[in-house]
């Protein structure tokens, strides 16, 4: 597999998982762009980069999964904060279920592949 193919594969995988992680980060409470990006960054290879996170945040807002509000920041202009909506909390628990089912299936799949 060429490295270009590998990059595409990971970026597609990441994009789906990124949504789950953004919602998970916001479950702890409202947050703003830079804070979300750095939290995700600290988690490792998941961080798809700012240029994926920011557009996805807007997308989730358009979808009604997140809502925004303005809040003053200690330094500089007011910041746009994101928080989960009721629909967002529903989506988060649906994605969690989906994800753990997926992980189990992939685990089984890898074991089967390894055993033969």
């Amino acid at each position, binding site marked *: 597999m060429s490295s270009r193919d590998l990059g595409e594969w990971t970026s597609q995988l990441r994009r789906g998982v990124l949504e789950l992680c953004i919602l998970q980060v916001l479950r702890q409470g409202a947050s703003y*762009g830079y804070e979300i990006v750095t939290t995700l960054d600290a988690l490792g290879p998941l961080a798809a980069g*700012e*240029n994926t996170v*920011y*557009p996805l945040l807007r997308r989730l807002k*358009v*979808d009604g999964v997140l809502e925004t509000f303005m809040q003053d920041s200690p*330094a*500089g202009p007011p910041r746009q904060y994101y928080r989960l909506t009721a629909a967002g909390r529903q989506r988060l628990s649906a994605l969690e279920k989906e994800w753990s089912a997926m992980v189990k299936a992939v685990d089984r799949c890898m074991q089967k592949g390894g055993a033969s």
Partner: protein
Amino acid sequence: MSLEHPLAERYLSRLDEQLKDLAPAERREVVDEIRNHIADATRAGKPLDSVLQALGSADELARGYAVELLLHPRAPSSTGKQRTERFLALTGLVVVGSIPTLVIVVVLASVGVSFFGSGLVVFAAGILASVGWLPNEVRMDVAPIWAILLGPLLVAGGALSLAALVWYVRFLARVVRRVLPAPAR
């Protein structure tokens, strides 16, 4: 806060330019958000160069937004406002449409059926009278030739009325379908 760094300002104005397909309010919010990101990151001690590099070029970032917001718009879940509007539209349709619909359907159906049926009878009676087979109990006030001519006219009128009824029902179905919520995909 203005970033006042020409490099950052150039980046943001390029981004703004590339986001021209977004709604103006959305576009402003996006640019403000990226402006805040750059300010936050540089305040945290990161050099501006690496902050901008991590964001990717303004064109790439704008493409990211275009892909998320324009290329694959998901149907937004219907909001309370939309539901209220739909309810009002449906109520309005029932209030304004029900009485006329009742009158139109009753008139078209009865005119259609009775004209069509009596036309056939009149035509048949005309034929019978002209060949002299009409029973004596039946009294005809017009010459048989008129009955033969009038019969098809009545049938045509009835058929026209029934066709109008079908058209009206289809029209009604279209209107109702537009007001009712779209079926879930």
